[in-house]
């Protein structure tokens, strides 16, 4: 079984996003970028399936600028066999990413796509579902457990108030939830080995699909700052302030 894992380069999870001063988007320059955490989980699951001899090959794919090569190298260090960058300068929306992936899947013919349920930058939670629809494949979203049985998958999903297990036929698109697994750490020997693994670049243009943005961002701004709290020196003043300023008591 061949598994394709799409990975996205996003602002590091631990960095507080700030709006650009001209309001055109989120400030990214000079900041630490990393692989989308849900995609790390997807990759880990694929690599584990390979280690269990269920999968034969794991391919990591990213759509975006040349800079996304760094997370593809990380993916290779974490166990992907090869990586493909679909290169474009466009800001890609979920539909565009799904179209790119669908084209690539035509060529690569994987049996399974495992992707993060959403990227932590735009929180769209759409790419996996759109991709399954474009391909006409089965889909199992928000997986917290994946079991492979011949040509089927049993996927446990996290739903409100419990778990649901769905039985889907391959080929399939599975999106991962947070508790599916605990991704491994990249080790130096593996990082060194990753430098020798193949990383292919395909221009998005060459796929001959329309990936132009459908949505125009008018403005990105930060929420209004919360006014600072004050200290009062007596209970009476506190009650007074709660009445007159905060208006939370009558």
């Amino acid at each position, binding site marked *: 079984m061949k598994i394709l894992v799409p990975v996205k380069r996003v602002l*590091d999870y*631990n960095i507080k996003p700030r709006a650009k001063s001209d309001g055109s988007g989120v400030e990214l320059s000079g900041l*630490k970028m990393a692989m989308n955490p849900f995609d790390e989980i997807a990759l880990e699951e694929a690599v584990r399936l390979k280690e269990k001899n269920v999968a034969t090959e794991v391919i990591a794919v990213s759509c975006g600028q040349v800079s996304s090569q760094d997370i593809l190298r990380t993916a290779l260090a974490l166990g992907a066999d090869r990586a493909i960058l679909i290169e474009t300068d466009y800001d890609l929306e979920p539909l565009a990413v799904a179209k790119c992936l669908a084209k690539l899947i035509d060529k690569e013919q994987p049996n399974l796509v495992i992707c993060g349920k959403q990227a932590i930058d735009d929180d769209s939670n759409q790419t996996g579902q759109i991709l399954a629809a474009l391909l006409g494949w089965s889909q199992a979203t928000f997986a917290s457990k994946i079991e492979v049985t011949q040509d089927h998958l049993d996927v446990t999903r996290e739903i409100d108030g419990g778990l649901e297990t769905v039985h889907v036929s391959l080929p399939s698109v599975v999106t991962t939830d947070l508790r599916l697994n*605990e991704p491994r*750490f990249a*080790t*130096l020997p593996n*990082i*060194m080995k990753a430098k020798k693994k193949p990383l292919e670049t395909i221009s998005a243009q060459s796929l001959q699909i329309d990936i132009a943005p459908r949505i125009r961002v008018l403005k990105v701004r930060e929420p209004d700052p919360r006014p600072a709290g004050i200290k009062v020196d007596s209970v009476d003043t506190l009650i007074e302030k709660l009445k007159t300023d905060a208006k939370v008591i009558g």
Partner: protein
Amino acid sequence: MHFIEEIQTRLSSYQILINEEDKKSYETDWRGRYQGDSLAVVFPKTIDEVIWTVQCCIKHNIKIVPQSGNTSLCGGSVPITSIPSIIINLSKLNQIREIDLDNNTITVESGVILGQLSDLALKNDRLFPLSMASEGSAQIGGVISTNAGGTAVIRYGTMRALVLGLEVVLPSGELWQGLTGLRKDNTGYDLKQLFIGAEGTLGIITAATLKLLPLPKTKEVYWATTNSVQHTVNVLNHLKKIIGDQICAFEIISSACLQLIKKHFPQLVLPHHEEGDWAILIELDYFNEPQDNHSIFMDCIEKGTVNDVAIAVNEQQRDHFWSIREHIPLAEKREGFSIKHDISLPISSIPQFILEAINEVSKLIPSVGNVCFGHLGDGNLHFNFTNPSQMTKEEFLSLTPTVNQIVYDLVYHFNGSLSAEHGIGQLKVNSLKKYKSQLELSLMQKIKYAIDPTNIMNPGKMLLPNND
């Protein structure tokens, strides 16, 4: 007029605690080992109030325990019941007096919390490098008075290296105004050095001018495993030779610590770990883009000094690696009682010391557990023994003096120190007396007597009076 009545004439009621319940948390040390009794806990808000309170204590012959965050690990900041004293708590003396970005200095009062100072430095695009587990509670006055260390000493030094000037209320009630921001000042004895690490026995530090440093652009955090302590020393030297002062932390962690982490914090997944491995947590700081250090570590792997190296590829993993290190004391606490040592040794002696110390203590207590972790880069080990399951806590506890003697005898055999960064406080007063030379003790007594002839400041801590 009675002492308490007199301080009530000057300080507001909320600045004085005399009720037993209210005082209690200030009279108990952080580890819950010492519970003293004080006449009152007072919270001065201004320098004048500190001076006035000290003068009032002189007048009534009341001793003074200076206190800031009360996170001492040696009972240094709590009173001793048999000595009538008050606690002067400096947490309300907490103004930022000045930030001078051209001089790269900041002047803060004693009650400022270390973590707040670091955050403020960051906001000004500067670094205040002292970092330790208690940074959310520890306050500057205490950090200076104990010459605190922490995890970045290998690159930035202890607190002593970061203090440029001090303001101190002396035991005479006088104010010494020494808040200079000078890096060079050869005008006689460097008086501030006396108060740094003096544990409040020479006066009350009320404010300090501290160094701010340029902020490194990027960090890298590595988790390496090796087979032996000697290998960790080899790796340290190899790194020092090639990347020198970019090493911001070099922490070693014994296999036993990792076992405790696995047992008590299973959610903290170890990057990789084989039975018997020592782990090394390495942080490198860069002002430019990181060089390719991978080859340095690969060299170590090829030479066999390192088994494997994981690198944190994002902030979350960096925090994760550090979190494992910071959870060791907590895992140790959950495991049960342990006999603790905070020792310092020449780095070259560490492998031999560890071997001999474990060997000797095991002869006394068969199957005793050893928990060893610390700042190898500074020669500082936290070297603790845990209660073996077949021994009762009381029996194990009663062996503390014997274990201490075995450990400290060996420490001094290797020219080490019995307190690397925690200080002396009440806990190690007798050990200090035993292991420090007569000449050194006598010089310390003379300095103490010259500045505090009536022994009003933090009595019973660090030094015992001459005739004791």
